[in-house]
């Protein structure tokens, strides 16, 4: 009941949507009734349109994000662990971190065309630096006393890196990945809206151009919900991964 009370505003919002559209306060062209959107959603699930495009989109986001996590995490820890790496790459990270990654959409398309490759590359490039910065800050902040005691107990440099530095870099790195996850969705949808042959963003653009707005709203809400659900699932995963800290 308390959850219902908590989320009541969202239900009110949905009811308000249905009402203003049904009562003709706004044109159904601008805002199709929610019930109609839900019906359109059901039809697209049945026809498989939503599923195939959704799978294409999620594959791109997942692959790009996985690459970004591995490369970005390794880069951040390397920068914190070896001073020369930091001296060489630190300024580049600092320059490219604030760059709006959406600017890379045309370039990745120039390099790899309109298919999966350009989207994966875009998401990889766009999501890498938040992970790098998180891992770098986390690894740099690892407790010196822990490192010294591990060394004095005879742990080799690589053992220290793996057993002491990596775990202490984890919390901040996971935060960086959360930022990257949000970025991945933004880059995915916008790049698919601009250049793609399939995917949810492309479907939105196609339906919008066609004027089938109830279906378009259905896909928009689907993507919004996927972004929200991915973030919630990731937070749950993060809590489990960090359970040892308590």
């Amino acid at each position, binding site marked *: 009941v308390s959850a219902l009370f908590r989320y009541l505003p969202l239900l009110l919002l949905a009811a308000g949507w249905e009402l203003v559209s049904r009562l003709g306060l706004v044109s159904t062209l601008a805002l199709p009734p929610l019930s109609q959107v839900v019906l359109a959603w059901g039809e697209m699930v049945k026809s498989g349109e939503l599923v195939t495009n959704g799978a294409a989109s999620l594959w791109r986001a997942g692959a790009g994000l996985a690459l970004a996590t591995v490369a970005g995490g390794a880069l951040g820890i390397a920068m914190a662990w070896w001073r020369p790496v930091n*001296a060489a790459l630190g300024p580049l990270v600092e320059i490219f971190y*604030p*760059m*709006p990654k*959406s*600017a890379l959409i045309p*370039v990745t398309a120039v390099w790899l065309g309109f298919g999966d490759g350009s989207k994966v590359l875009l998401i990889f490039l766009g999501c890498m630096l938040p992970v790098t910065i998180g891992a770098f800050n986390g690894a740099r902040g690892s407790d010196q006393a822990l490192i010294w005691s591990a060394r004095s107990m005879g742990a080799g440099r690589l053992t220290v890196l793996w057993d002491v530095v990596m775990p202490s870099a984890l919390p901040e790195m996971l935060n960086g990945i959360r930022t990257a996850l949000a970025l991945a969705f*933004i880059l995915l949808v916008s790049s698919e809206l601009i250049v793609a042959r399939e995917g949810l963003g492309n479907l939105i653009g196609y339906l919008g151009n066609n004027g089938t707005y109830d279906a378009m709203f259905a896909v928009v809400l689907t*993507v919004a919900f996927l972004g929200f659900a991915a973030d919630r699932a990731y937070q749950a995963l993060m809590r489990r991964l960090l359970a040892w800290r308590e």
Partner: protein
Amino acid sequence: MARVAGTTAEPIPGEPGRAQRALRASGSAMAGAAPILLLGLAWEALAMSGSLTPYQLPRLSAVLVRIWTDAVDGDLLLNIGVTLYRALTGFAIAAVAGVILGMAMSRNAAVRWLFDPIVSVGFPMPKITFLPVVMLWLNVHDVAKITMVVLDAIFPVVTATIAGIAGIDRHLIWSARNMGASNRELLWQIMLPAALPQIMTGLQVALPIALIVAVLVEMLMGGYGLGAAMVHAWRFADSRGVFAGIVEIAVVGYVLVKAMAIARRRLLIWHQEALAPSTV
């Protein structure tokens, strides 16, 4: 303000003097510039080697020439101006509205009840998805573009404001109340300054978002602006224009983020964090 702080600070024995510090700063700036120069050289060399076509990677020198001609034409200034106008207007609206909403949510249970689920569900959503909807309602002009910027940039400000107010030392509020501060005084003189470090952090998150979204909506909706110019060049297979756009957008982003970090130091010079070594 900075000068006042500089003159009142006691010179610490053993600390490098101003000239030495300036020298060291320029030395580290040079050390920082070296990797960037190397990257530029590598770009030029890779483009000249012939392993990539000029379409895939035009020479850096050609791109710089292109930026120069754009600058002489006035196109560059116009596009930067338009993009910054959209990003900063949206950012300013998001900042003011976000702080007000965050304050209202912290102070009033009904407002909190109404907006809490909307903020917690809306924050992680990719708001850019709503672009076709906003286009449908508001067309493709400045109002639609700025609306998209506000929609994306407001969430970090709201959550940071709430977190900042929640983190205020209760004693501060109690003592102010005890000394007879009115509600308005409490808000302006106690709560807002005390929450400012957190709010600034939220703004520092929101500003790059505002720029990202401004560039994105220009790419998607057309018109003027850095993003639109870049997509235009790309449609005509003018890859020099595309790479020139990347360099321009990167420079604008870098300058904005740096300016925000400096603004933070100025605004929070009274706060203890100003004494800590700067990280940006």
